[in-house]
């Protein structure tokens, strides 16, 4: 039953053909069988899941269920969950049992969704391969020797392996879209400010945004609709009414996308994309034309500066955010130390992994006396230029399409010693975060080694429903999103 659409699962629950307890039990059994192969979960919460499932069953029996009542789900371990271990993939928080729920977690609990566990991730969401986890790398369900992408690699792998039908993630520079692409599922990052950051452990606050993973765009819409909404506890949360992001996921007629103009940034198609990715992206675009869309070339001349600007802004904000880990109020404290300063230095050196330390050092440097204007302000100016490029492009098109990642999933260990090579794998995703736009990745075929390729759709601000509706029409006539890796 887990490998069904949310609509079908919800209907079965409503008709009492399956109970929430049976679904949670099925998901937990699939995790027991599948997780040893992919290490997608850091924590499973069997007792909590069964208790939540029993409550969901009572609600359903009373006829008070919603679209997510009784649906098993997993949270990326960046979201605080009251009474459940919340590690953020770090030794620093290896024993942290959160005393409160993130806003997203509260909303999904209230919707009756059943959390079965917490998923593995790059430490503090810093990474593109899930190899930077204190709990070992997550493996790609399509090939256990390959990475699932990152930083939300555990959530993407869990959905790809059908251990859960839906999972949450966060995307600061591509951390939902890239793992969705590499694992062959659908993932969406909404407009910055749509999903509350309260209780979502901070990495780079001006870029971090929560989002959704599922098999299909239609299912992503159901999850995202339940996650979004204004929260006064997040100062950057937008004061907008909640909306049904699935409202354009309607049945398709022959030319359902007639009139839709898809912009293709020439910079994304110039060089750098591997041939197998290019072939799948081109085939997906041909399918979109068959559905009635037209394509038009657009330009994002400053997109090449997105990576350098990101690696100033994100580390600067990270160095500030992660200063809270001081070994005093929560998190790891060194066993032996001298004075207070020595306690800070040793606790942080032991609690953080290599990539986190590097980003803290880069951030500390660019924010240090005399360098602020040359780095942080300069990067924020580039951010403006990048956002302006998108604004100009959206005068010529309704959505922008392109690759998500220049390659299919790469090998575990292949890039882990070279930070700069790893950073370049996010070349097509980072500009979207700097501009704060919504974007999704949906399965578009397979490349070398039978590994999935994703197509990225970028929308204008608040165009999530159009993005999801567009991807839904594609998924009505293709079946890439229904493929399941062998052995799951």
């Amino acid at each position, binding site marked *: 039953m887990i490998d069904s659409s949310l609509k079908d699962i919800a209907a079965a629950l409503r008709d009492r053909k399956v109970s929430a307890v049976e679904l949670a039990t099925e998901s937990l059994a699939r995790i027991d069988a599948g997780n040893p192969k992919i290490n997608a979960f850091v924590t499973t919460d069997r007792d909590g899941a069964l208790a939540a499932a029993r409550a969901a069953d009572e609600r359903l029996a009373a006829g008070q269920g919603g679209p997510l009542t009784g649906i098993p789900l997993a949270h990326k371990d960046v979201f605080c969950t009251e009474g459940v271990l919340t590690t953020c993939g770090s030794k620093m928080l290896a024993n942290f049992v959160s005393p409160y729920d993130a806003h997203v977690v509260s909303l999904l609990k209230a919707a009756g969704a059943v959390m079965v566990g917490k998923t593995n991730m790059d430490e503090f969401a810093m990474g593109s391969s899930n190899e930077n986890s204190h709990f070992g790398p997550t493996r790609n369900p399509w090939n256990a020797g390959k990475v699932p992408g990152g930083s939300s690699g555990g959530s993407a792998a869990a959905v790809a392996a059908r251990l859960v039908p839906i999972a949450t993630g966060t995307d600061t520079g591509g951390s939902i879209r890239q793992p969705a692409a590499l694992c062959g599922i659908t993932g969406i990052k909404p407009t910055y*400010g749509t999903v509350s950051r309260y209780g979502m452990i901070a990495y780079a606050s001006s870029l971090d945004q929560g989002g959704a993973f599922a098999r299909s765009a239609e299912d992503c819409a159901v999850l995202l609709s339940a996650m979004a909404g204004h929260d*006064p506890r997040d100062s950057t949360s937008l004061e907008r009414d909640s909306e049904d992001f699935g409202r354009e996921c309607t049945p398709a007629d022959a030319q359902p996308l007639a009139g839709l103009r898809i912009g293709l940034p020439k910079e994304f198609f110039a060089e750098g994309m591997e041939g197998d990715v290019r072939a799948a992206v081109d085939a997906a675009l041909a399918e979109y034309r068959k559905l009635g869309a037209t394509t038009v070339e657009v330009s994002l001349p400053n997109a090449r500066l997105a990576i350098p600007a990101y690696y100033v802004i994100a580390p600067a904000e990270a160095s500030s955010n992660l200063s809270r880990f001081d070994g*005093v109020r*929560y998190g790891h*404290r060194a066993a032996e130390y001298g004075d207070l300063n020595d306690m800070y230095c040793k606790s942080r050196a032991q609690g953080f992994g290599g990539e986190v330390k590097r980003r803290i050092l880069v951030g500390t440097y660019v924010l240090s006396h005399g360098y602020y204007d040359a780095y942080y302000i300069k990067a924020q100016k580039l951010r*403006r230029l990048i956002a302006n490029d998108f604004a100009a492009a959206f005068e010529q098109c309704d959505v922008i399409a392109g690759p998500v990642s220049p390659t299919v999933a790469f090998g575990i260990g292949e890039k882990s010693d070279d930070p700069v090579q790893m950073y370049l794998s996010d070349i097509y995703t980072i500009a979207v975060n700097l501009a704060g736009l919504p974007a999704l990745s949906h399965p578009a075929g397979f490349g070398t080694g039978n590994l999935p390729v994703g197509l990225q759709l970028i929308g204008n601000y608040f165009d999530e429903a159009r993005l999801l509706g567009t991807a839904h029409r594609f998924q009505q006539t293709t079946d890439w999103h229904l493929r399941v890796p062998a052995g799951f």
Partner: protein
Amino acid sequence: MSLSLDEVRHIAKLARLELAEGDLAATQAKLNGIFGLIEEMQAVDTDGVEPMSHPQELAQRLREDRVTESDRRAAYQSVAPQTESGLYLVPKVIE
């Protein structure tokens, strides 16, 4: 631009990260690789461009000055490495 070993030591100190002498050179090499990437920014003229910190240009919201949270000290201190009588314990800082 490249960082000297002394600069690496200095920023590690500012960041409160103990860095073993033996790891300094490797850290320096990786940081300099990252700064090489970052330097590409400087090639673009950004004179007169307004820095962008938030895509929606929000103003900081204010709230009414009233108590909204209850006392959850025991729950929050339950995750602290060391507490006593409701206080966080740290090494002695004042002789």
